[in-house]
């Protein structure tokens, strides 16, 4: 995209001048959810906000956001509509976008209260038949979250408590409901995507134990471990290359941010 090449040239000029007030300063435009902690929010408190800020600083650019709830139509209405240029967190190879090299690899985890001693790790643990297990549910195209599928495959549905994947968007952290339920003891354990589990566990009243779900995948089609990349428009090879370079050089800084947010990571993601 010629516009972006122009911006890259402008960014170079901007960094040489070392002045953010230069009127040619580059702008990096990020598409993000305004209410999706721990990933992002409008107050820029999420770890994706922090990594975006690191990216902007690294490139000597100013950061701008286009906010849109990450529901159906998010990519279409933001990235594809040209309103912004980067989505900070998508699974590697996410088909509607061109994805950067992965910058972390995380996993679904079992979250349980330490004082209850549930300490689950395996989806084949026989105690899953008796315990109340929280799991996020969606209802599109017969697809569902990988843990919801995995539990159903084992016939574990009667003691499963479903949490709508969107949570209650009128609350400041819609995704917290499932971990809150573990904290309160409403469920004995929950299967939660690692970054959300790690972040909300830090704020829980009771110490929570997080253990990666094993096996790591029920089948090639049903993994619990995902590489996470940044996404750009399919034709945007230049920006992708720039992101790849950033991720390679600033790995340690990115890792520090992920540590701050308690994001559980699995090796081999890069």
């Amino acid at each position, binding site marked *: 995209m010629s516009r972006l090449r122009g911006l890259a040239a402008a960014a170079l000029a901007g960094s040489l001048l070392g002045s953010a007030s230069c009127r040619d300063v580059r702008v990096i435009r990020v598409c993000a959810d305004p209410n999706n902690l721990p990933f992002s929010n409008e107050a820029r408190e999420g770890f994706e906000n922090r990594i975006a800020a690191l990216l902007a600083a690294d490139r000597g650019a100013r950061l701008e956001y286009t906010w849109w709830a990450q529901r159906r139509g998010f990519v279409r209405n933001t990235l594809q509509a040209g309103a912004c240029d980067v989505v900070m967190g998508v699974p590697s190879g996410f088909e509607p976008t061109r994805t950067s090299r992965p910058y972390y690899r995380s996993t679904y985890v079992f979250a349980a209260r330490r004082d209850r001693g549930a300490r689950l790790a395996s989806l084949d643990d026989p105690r899953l038949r008796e315990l109340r297990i929280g799991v996020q*549910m969606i209802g599109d195209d017969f697809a569902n979250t990988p843990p919801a599928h995995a539990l159903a495959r084992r016939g574990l549905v009667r003691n499963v408590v479903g949490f709508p994947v969107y949570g209650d968007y009128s609350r400041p952290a819609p995704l917290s409901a499932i971990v809150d339920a573990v904290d309160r003891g409403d469920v004995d354990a929950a299967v939660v995507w690692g970054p959300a589990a790690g972040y909300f566990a830090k704020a829980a009243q009771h110490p929570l134990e997080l253990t990666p779900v094993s096996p790591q995948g029920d089948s090639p089609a049903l993994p619990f471990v995902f590489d996470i990349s940044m996404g750009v428009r399919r034709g945007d090879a230049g920006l992708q290359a720039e992101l790849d370079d950033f991720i390679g050089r600033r790995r340690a800084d990115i890792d520090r941010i992920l540590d701050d947010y308690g994001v559980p990571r699995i090796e081999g993601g890069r």
Partner: protein
Amino acid sequence: MAAAAAAVLAACQGQTLDTSPPASVRPLNGSLTASDPAQLQTDDGQWVMPAKNYSSTRFSGLNQITTANVSRLGVAWTFSTGMVAGHEAAPLVVGSTMFVVTPFPNIVYAFDLSRPGAPLKWQYDPKPLGASKGVACCDTVNRGAVYADGAIFFNTLDGRTIALDAATGQPRWITPLADINKGESMTMAPLVVKGKVLVGNSGGEFGVRGWLTALDAGSGSIAWRAYSTGPDKDVLIGPSFTPHYDGDRGKDLGMTTWPGEAWRTGGGTVWGWISYDPELNLLYYGTANPGPWNPDQRPGDNKWTAGIFARVPETGEARWFYQTSPHDLFDHDGVNEVVLANLAVDGQQRKVAMRADRNGLFYVLDRATGEVLSAAPFGYVNSNRGVDMKTGRLIEVKEKAPRLGVVVRDICPAAPGMKDWQPMSFSPQTGLVYIPHQNLCEDLETMTTSYIAGTPFVGASVVYKAGPGGNRGVVTAWNPVSAQPAWTIKEHFPVWSGTLVTAGDVLFYGTMDGWFKAVNAKSGEELWRFKCGSGIIGQPVSYRGPDGRQYVAVLAGVGGWAGAIVSADLDPRDATAGNGWGGALADLKDATTRGGMLYVFAIGGGQ
């Protein structure tokens, strides 16, 4: 009112209609004083609810436009709504005013039919929250408003029911009902019965819990709410609940036919149509599919989703329920309209409720009891073998059931069903039901890897394609007594508009590539067609203008679930775009473009 009700029932019995309205219900020439929808529905000069009348026949008793003269139909006037989402609403005509509600942002326009070109009288913008677009599963449609008691009632996508003064457009009350933060929205047209405005929620794809709510028409306060899942007290099931089949009897089946607490996020929304029989004093409406789609997550019948409720309007208490798709496997929402008529079945006059279901069967039910009198496929069906007439249960075909990790091919009908929301009509003159519908099959894989960062980047595994014959749409004229088609018309694209049938024996419908067509209701012979600016997925209506002429009105503006590929500008190279429609309608973008326009036709056009 009793006389009006009798007139409707007489019409249903197939007696010849006196098409000149009784003096008490003549067109109001500009006044908006008549109020009772039970009375107004019998006046063929007006069109005060989307389905025309409580029986939901969408039959106009007007007969100026006939099979002999319809070829001279021309445009009388038009109006651009300025919106590009799918236009599914029916225009309303009350006295000499027409009302139209648009898709999001749900603007209501009022037109003065007594003046040349029908200038705008007023418009009302409810300013719905933009975020509500994010919870609309299938385009940001609205299915219309309803008139009663001097007010226009309609729903906004962000979940409010609003009453406007019909003369001025000023709001009388606004009641927030659905919570977009929980994935709820509202797209259906309300119905007003005995001073109660009946509305339901949308959002079965978002882990919501379905409900029908009755509001006081005067104040907007909630009179009752009946959930589609959960304990009997929430579903308003009490001692007078007497379903016909054993499987529907028992305590708290809305909980016990679900695993654990899955009923709390179990769908069963109410986004379709409501009918009403004043004589039995029963409302009839359908409940949508259970959630989540994946049936492995919800063993059991999943009551009370994917079926029909009969309820008492005053209290909401349920009288009977019939489940068309127990433990729904295919997103076969049970929201399709219920058309009421009195038919001779096996030589006996029966009060029936008719339903062309998503699952491909045309049901004739006894509307007093919910007993199935007949259930026959009205298109190519291979996923069920009809209904066990003893138990009332759908007989499923095991090989076509979804299985984890397996691509099950050629399931017919596909998820949108043999027929979706698009309403059929019934002519008491021909005795035929006119069904606009699809001819689609699907390949279905139930296991798709979804990465969920708390929110779905939706993976998709459903691909729709044309059924046998290669045509994706059909209009079927169905004889509900013999349970056989009288004739069919094959259409290139799914027929996603409603049908309208008139006393002139003319049937009207629109196509997704923009043709508005008139055919002979007896033979299916095409008599007239007009190419509109965009594909048609709206509901045609007919009325008598202040000048005494018969008019036909319809909204063009392609979109909806089927047409989102155009209205939302999806990529047709992605076969799974738009929940599987991308592949089935990849060529729709070559045939039409988006844009809402109201078209009004009369013999000789705008002369």
